[in-house]
């Protein structure tokens, strides 16, 4: 792979059949590599009982038994699986809602109301976006312990909102630059109050960015493991990734059931990701090269 592919469209494709075949070969290798661990999940999830140890490269006997076990919570590791899925969903939706609300209010204030020290504030937010999350896990645990929020879903919602909001403020600031400030001024001349401008003008115009950031926060919360593991403890409050982690605590884990549960847990974010792909990329690409 070299520079040929970076050339504009008309220059590429001139390589003819040979180049096309080489590109196809690379595609096959890439897909093999990309899909390998995912194939492994499906393979193990379809294996009945003890044939996990059979050493097969493809399922010799298909069995949906593992999925039945997950669906009916028919295993001691999975007694509360659907409740845990609900916990993950609640945390994800709440994180999305509060991130969008708090982030849009802050960005509205900084960008549209020209808050004093607004630039300083958004720079500080940028700074906190760059803190590695796991580095704050220990003080976070102690603090939420002091607030009496351990083993409470709110603890995880707070974490997700805290870490998603700085990103939200950036995306919103970037996006709102494309909405003329004259609209706000016109609305104000017509007698609209500031909250009216926020709810009736700013929010509707910001919709694509709100959707992108909401999706981002939802996925962030749904995928979070470390904080969920530390902050939540009882079987009925943990989210799914924590429950999946429990499987690894013993040596004789039922790997095939674990993989079936892991697959079911992975489907919602995948559906959301592919449905929202267009929105997500606008959020990510806006101004990626301006320098």
């Amino acid at each position: 792979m070299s520079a040929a592919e970076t050339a504009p469209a008309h220059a590429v494709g001139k390589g003819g059949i040979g180049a096309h075949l080489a590109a196809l070969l690379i595609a096959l290798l890439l897909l093999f590599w990309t899909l390998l661990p995912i194939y492994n999940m499906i393979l193990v999830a379809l294996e009945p009982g003890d044939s996990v140890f059979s050493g097969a490269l493809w399922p010799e006997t298909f069995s949906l038994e593992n999925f039945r076990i997950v669906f009916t919570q028919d295993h001691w590791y999975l007694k509360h699986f659907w409740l845990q899925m609900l916990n993950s969903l609640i945390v994800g939706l709440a994180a999305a809602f509060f991130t969008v609300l708090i982030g849009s209010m802050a960005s509205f204030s900084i960008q549209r109301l020209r808050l004093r020290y607004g630039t300083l504030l958004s720079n500080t937010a940028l700074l906190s976006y760059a803190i590695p999350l796991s580095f704050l896990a220990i003080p976070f645990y102690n603090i939420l312990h002091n607030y009496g929020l351990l083993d409470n879903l709110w603890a995880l919602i707070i974490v997700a909102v805290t870490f998603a909001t700085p990103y939200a403020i950036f995306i919103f600031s970037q996006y709102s630059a494309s909405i003329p400030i004259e609209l706000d001024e016109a609305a104000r001349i017509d007698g609209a109050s500031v909250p009216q401008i926020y709810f009736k003008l700013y929010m509707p115009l910001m919709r694509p960015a709100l959707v992108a950031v909401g999706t981002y926060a939802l996925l962030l919360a749904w995928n979070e493991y470390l904080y969920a593991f530390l902050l939540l403890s009882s079987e009925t409050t943990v989210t799914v990734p924590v429950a999946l982690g429990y499987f690894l605590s013993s040596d004789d884990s039922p790997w095939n059931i674990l993989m079936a549960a892991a697959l079911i847990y992975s489907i919602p974010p995948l559906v959301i990701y592919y449905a929202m792909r267009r929105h997500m990329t606008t959020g990510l690409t806006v101004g990626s090269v301006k320098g």
Partner: protein
Amino acid sequence: MAKATSERAPPLTRSDTGRQPRKLAPEHLWGVVFVLPYIAIFLLFVVYPVGYGLWLGADWTKLQALFADPLYYRTAVNTLILLLVGVNLKMFIALLLSGYLLQPYKWMPFVFMLIVLPWAMPAIPTFISVRWMLNGQWGLINNFIWTFWEIEGPGWLTSPSLAMGSVVTFYLWKWVPFWTVIFVAGRTAIPKELYEAAAIDGARGLQMFRFVTFPMMASLYLICTVLSMIWTLGDYNTVRFITGGGPVLSTHVLATLGIRDAFEVGDPGLGMAAVISALPLLVPLVAFLVWKMNKEHVQL
């Protein structure tokens, strides 16, 4: 915002911003009200934990205990391997892949769609799958080796160097797609006219990359590399789920060591000391990133 207005009426806005006259007082009041929820979150859950964490870990005896532990050096080296080798390999592969994925073949969008899967899927299920795949006795990799070459594959997770290699390899598997998407966006934003102009000037093949793509992407590439180093410094899941820090605690990184010391060993001060020992690396990276992002107006 400031940029958009300044393009429209530069002299006026430039003198106005920062020192707004008092006539907009109610607006300023509302501005404060609207920003309060974020300020509250920031103080309670960013400033407070950071301060508290620094206070917990800035204990000389804890730092001494940390540095006296032979495990610490192993961990520091592993962290550097992931940061220097892992991140740089990842960015370079992502840069190549982003060019490949922009080739105008009809089937390319399909490949693109599948290639982002490792990133789009939650980390925990895939890393658990990788852990099983690498199992020396029953894992898919060694089954594969046995089926095709009839030899016993190595114990990927039972040898310290192979285990660390596996961590780096599947760290790449998970994160190359994300940065590829970023670089595809970066390349797409390069104006076509630049390539056309370069072609008229006689640039061919590698020269296109050398004189157009590279200068246009350099700043994005640098920022992404630094940002990724910062995030990788805090990467807990990869090591936790692929090797669990094993065999014999040989694959820990600072992020997993800190959590282990704090919650398994039960010494939060020691755990925080591990995190604080990364600050001489983290602070310059963050400072550089913020400076560079402000200067270049690049955003992710």
